[in-house]
């Protein structure tokens, strides 16, 4: 089936550093999402993105977070600066159309550890 790729699979950084998480969504999908999952807990919605713009973001999407997809390349989540509480697994997802009734396809996640 359709696959979403995420790079890197793991990242360890020091608190205060910048990190960029990369997502390669399904090729014909138009909507992109980031979710945060702390080990053993639920997936928390961060942001969704369409046509070069943030459509919706949650309270977890702090000012230190930003997303972009320059020229149809990777859909990225940048955290600058990182904090200890940013340690989590970050899942990227994409869907063909509006999130309303479209299936989301999730990537394998990037495990971020902030020391």
């Amino acid at each position, binding site marked *: 089936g359709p696959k*979403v790729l995420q790079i890197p699979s793991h990242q360890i950084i020091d608190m205060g550093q910048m990190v960029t998480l990369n997502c390669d969504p399904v090729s014909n999908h138009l909507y992109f*999402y980031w*979710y945060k999952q702390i080990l053993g*807990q*639920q*997936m*928390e*919605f961060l942001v*969704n993105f369409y046509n070069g713009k943030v*459509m*919706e973001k949650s309270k977890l999407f702090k000012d230190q977070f930003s997303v972009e997809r320059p020229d149809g390349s990777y859909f990225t989540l940048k955290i600058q600066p990182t904090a200890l509480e940013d340690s989590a697994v970050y*899942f990227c997802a994409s869907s063909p159309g*509006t*999130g*309303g*009734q479209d*299936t*989301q*396809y*999730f*990537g*394998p*996640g990037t495990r971020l550890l902030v020391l």
Partner: protein
Amino acid sequence: QQQVRQSPQSLTVWEGETAILNCSYEDSTFDYFPWYHQFPGESPALLIAIRPVSNKKEDGRFTIFFNKREKKFSLHIADSQPGDSATYFCAANNNNAPRFGAGTKLSVKP
């Protein structure tokens, strides 16, 4: 604010039994209700979904029961198998991004 509530947090059943996972929601604009399963170390994957025009959706051993009036929906896994052991997330969508429940960790004992 938790928009989708899920219970139980964990569930253990014997092989062959029916596992029942429950969810409820508050926002009446939600109009699509998928269930995902997630195996350890893997990403969530869509299992089955329902729209509120129906009150039941079946796919093999998996059935969603939907109660629009009470804003509740449940996943029934019939003839549970050890391979069904995973974390199950319900979700609810409207035109915005889906919101997920907290998950139910299901263990099926042989």
